[in-house]
């Protein structure tokens, strides 16, 4: 059989390793065969190909040494980075009803890259990656991408397939069939953004700036090395070509999100939807931004649109379910979650959510079973802690304080930084009858632990302030109430307390 035909057939059947072997064999005989060379490059890049649109985590260095910031203090509703003060427009987004993530944004229905913490200060940022749980890469060029590069090297017996540093990029840029696979190879396998950028720049010049693919690739490279304005220019010029695909809109949106201009990103997605009506990716991305800006109604509308076009989109279902749950419709949320379950997803978080929905829609018999399932499926300590924490809530709902304390303690066993569990332990301790001094000291230390671990929670500070006022430690109370109000400026009782204490300071 013709080896090229065989290799192509293997490639088409997605048996990349076998295909690469065939190619290597033939290349040993004839190192200058471009067909085999290209095919092997494509094999190797296919093996490690990731959807780089989604799998992308912002590193600390990019975050804190950000030169693209336009304003230190952005106007409300125009930034994703400034302290997220959510105006409680509707009960559904109020802080006392819908909890927030570490970023201070309303909790979302699905975990994605970037929903995890966005550290506020350098100090906090440097402290965070030390803990085992929030492994955030120091910069995005290290971490996961380097790992991808080294993993691909291992599968090769005799050194790297192409020595990129010695490649004559200008020559290969002119060979149309080779340049694109070569670009992907350099970007995905070698993860060498600088050379990929060189190649893309040469190629786009060679094509006299008429090929949108190269412009988009150039934009991606610029994005990866953090030159966001150049990336924006390239992708914008790619978008001028009529045959440009959805990808370009998504990338441009991503660039704007990195520049912290959510409204510009929304505009891009809207334009994209004009050109590609019904494109679910564009809608999903826009919905995510609305959600992060606490505009739940718009977000849910978009997610519902997504479901109209793509009825099995897990993210949309999960987010809609979450919204229903926090808007006092646990029954409807339950139906959405059940739909996800029917689609074959089966994990601890899902069972946990179903358990909560069952509990709040008064189907008590199902609740415990669901949580048992969730504990069974749970594979990370964080999730286990959350499940125990929820169980503590349910037990408290049945009036059993002792068991609630135990559940909260179990949550702390799994994750000894669980701030909500600390807070609730404090609240339960406070609600005991015949409080003694040691009870109060215990409560205080619980709340202090909660406040130290959960920078995004206002409750521990408020509770501490209450204790301070009751025991006459007004200074302590004042410091805490100020912190609570920073996190949640419209909390009614906190404001009342603040005004009472402030009077004492000003009456001197």
């Amino acid at each position, binding site marked *: 059989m013709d080896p090229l035909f065989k290799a192509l057939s293997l490639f088409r059947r997605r048996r990349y390793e076998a295909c690469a072997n065939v190619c290597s064999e033939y290349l040993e005989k004839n190192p200058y065969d471009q067909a085999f060379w290209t095919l092997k490059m494509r094999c190797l890049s296919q093996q490690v190909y990731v959807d780089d649109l989604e799998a992308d985590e912002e590193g600390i260095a990019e975050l804190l040494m950000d030169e693209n910031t336009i304003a230190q203090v952005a106007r409300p509703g125009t930034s994703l980075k400034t302290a997220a003060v959510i105006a409680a427009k509707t009960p559904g987004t109020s802080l*006392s009803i819908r909890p927030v993530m570490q970023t201070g944004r309303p909790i979302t229905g699905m975990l994605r890259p970037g929903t995890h913490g966005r550290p506020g200060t350098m100090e906090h940022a440097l402290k965070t990656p030390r803990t085992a749980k929030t492994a955030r890469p120091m910069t995005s060029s290290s971490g996961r991408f380097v790992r991808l590069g080294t993993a691909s090297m291992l599968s090769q017996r005799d050194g790297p397939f192409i020595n990129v540093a010695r490649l004559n990029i200008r020559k290969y840029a002119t060979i149309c069939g080779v340049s694109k696979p070569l670009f992907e190879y350099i970007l995905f396998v070698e993860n060498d953004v600088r050379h990929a950028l060189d190649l893309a720049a040469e190629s786009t010049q060679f094509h006299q700036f008429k090929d949108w693919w190269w412009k988009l690739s150039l934009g991606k490279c610029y994005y990866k090395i953090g030159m966001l304005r150049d990336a924006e220019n390239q992708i914008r010029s790619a978008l001028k070509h009529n045959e440009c695909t959805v990808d370009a809109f998504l990338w441009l949106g991503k660039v704007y999100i990195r520049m912290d201009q959510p409204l510009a990103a929304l505009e891009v997605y809207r334009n994209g939807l004009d050109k590609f009506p019904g494109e679910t990716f564009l809608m999903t991305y826009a919905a995510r931004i609305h959600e992060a800006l606490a505009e739940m109604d718009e977000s849910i509308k978009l997610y519902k649109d997504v479901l109209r076009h793509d009825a099995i989109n897990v993210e949309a279902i999960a987010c809609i379910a979450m919204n229903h749950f926090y808007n006092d419709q646990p029954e409807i949320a339950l139906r959405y979650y059940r739909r996800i379950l029917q689609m074959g997803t089966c994990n601890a978080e899902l069972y946990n959510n179903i358990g909560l929905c069952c509990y709040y829609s008064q189907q008590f018999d199902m609740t415990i079973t669901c949580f048992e399932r969730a504990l069974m499926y749970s594979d990370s300590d964080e999730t286990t802690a959350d499940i125990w924490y929820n169980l503590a809530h349910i037990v408290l709902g049945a009036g059993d304080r002792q068991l609630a304390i135990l559940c909260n303690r179990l949550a702390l066993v799994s994750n000894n930084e669980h701030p909500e569990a600390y807070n*609730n332990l404090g609240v339960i301790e406070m609600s005991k009858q015949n409080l003694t001094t040691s009870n109060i000291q215990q409560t205080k230390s619980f709340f202090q632990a909660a406040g130290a671990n959960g920078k995004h929670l206002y409750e521990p500070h408020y*509770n501490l302030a209450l204790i301070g006022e009751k025991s*006459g430690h*007004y*200074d302590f109370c004042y410091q805490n109430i100020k912190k609570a109000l920073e996190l949640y400026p419209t909390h009614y009782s906190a404001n009342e307390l603040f005004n009472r204490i402030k009077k004492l*300071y000003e009456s*001197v």
Partner: protein
Amino acid sequence: MTNELKNKESYNWLYHLHYIRGEFETCEKQIQKHNAKSEYASYLIGLIKLRQSDVKGAITEFTSIKSNETTYVKAIARCLMLLGRHSNVCELIRESGLKLSPNDWQLWHILGTAYMHLGQISLAKDAFQHSLQATNQIEPFLLLSQCHLIESDTKSAIFVIRRATELSPNDATLNTKLGLLLFANGMSAKGVDKLMQLSHLSANSPGNLSLALAVGSVLQEIKMDIDGALYRYKMANNFESPCLWNNVAICFASRKKFVAAVSCLKRALYLNTLDWKINYNLGLLNLQLRQFASAFHYLKTAATLSNGLPNVFSLLAICLENLEDDTNARQAHITATKSPHGAFPLPLLNYAIYLHTTDMDRDLAIELLMEYEQCWLKRRANIDFDENMIKTATKLAQALNLSSHMAWTKEPPTHHAIANSINDGHADSENKGNTIKEENQADC
């Protein structure tokens, strides 16, 4: 050159000007520039530090002042109070403050507050009385009434607050407090009047939660003006208070909109899981909607959280009756009638009805009905006895052939005409749901 030769204290007017304009930084800068060490400069720096909430810094500034004047002693005492060192406050004021000026109301006031936190209520009361001899400010009044309340001497508390309202008749919080005290302590008519008067004064001012709750619950319970109450609650413009949601739910329930009521109560419960009243109301509504398992769950929670109030147990028993768990229902009835909280009329009646319907023990039922009568005789003026309950009791008495002996039948004979089945009324009870205090803890 001439400037520097001048007396340093001649700049005091400048510092004062900066300070009262709120230009704290400029003020500090000026003081540093002139290197002023005068009393007034230190005092101002202390005040500025206090405004920037640095109490310890302020206290060192104030203590660095050598001269012994009431103003400075007062400032130090206040700082100590802010830091929570109450015994030091008492010492300082008694040793030096009161010797300097024995009639300063502020000193007495601070002393009283410190005693209050130390738990020496009688001394605190004394201090506030002293303070009130020298002033007409309302703060001592408020704290004095609080002292009375701690000693559960409500009459004196009401008296004190009333005197305060005479002095400042337009203070909304003061008036709300008076109204609530009157309302809660047997003078409900006066309290209602007071609150209604207040509500007219502040009819359209949004955002006062405690007033809205007070006026709203008066409207819905006593004046039966559900629309007015709902309007009040809406004006409070606050959707984070569990009490508010609870009261809104009761409004809906009294209009027979049970679904809305249940969802309001659920939100209230979400906001405060540890309140037994919300659980109780939710149990009651579920009982009405014949969702007995749910009702059982909520009532059980209410029973544990309220430490076994008889009314809760009584409802729990009815719930168990409907779930056909006879032994436990009986047990719950017995617990409800024999609770350490004293005799409540509703559990007695419910138990009697239970005994009658199950044909178990006629003598015991009669005995219970007698006990119920005793309750009625003792507390007939109370709102505990509404018409429905009397009706039901009458029907039961008729069924037991005792109707002519009951005490209430001898008074205005209005309820005799009704002769339906006995069972229909026995599940209802008053909606105990109007808490006026704010909740203590934020659950998350």
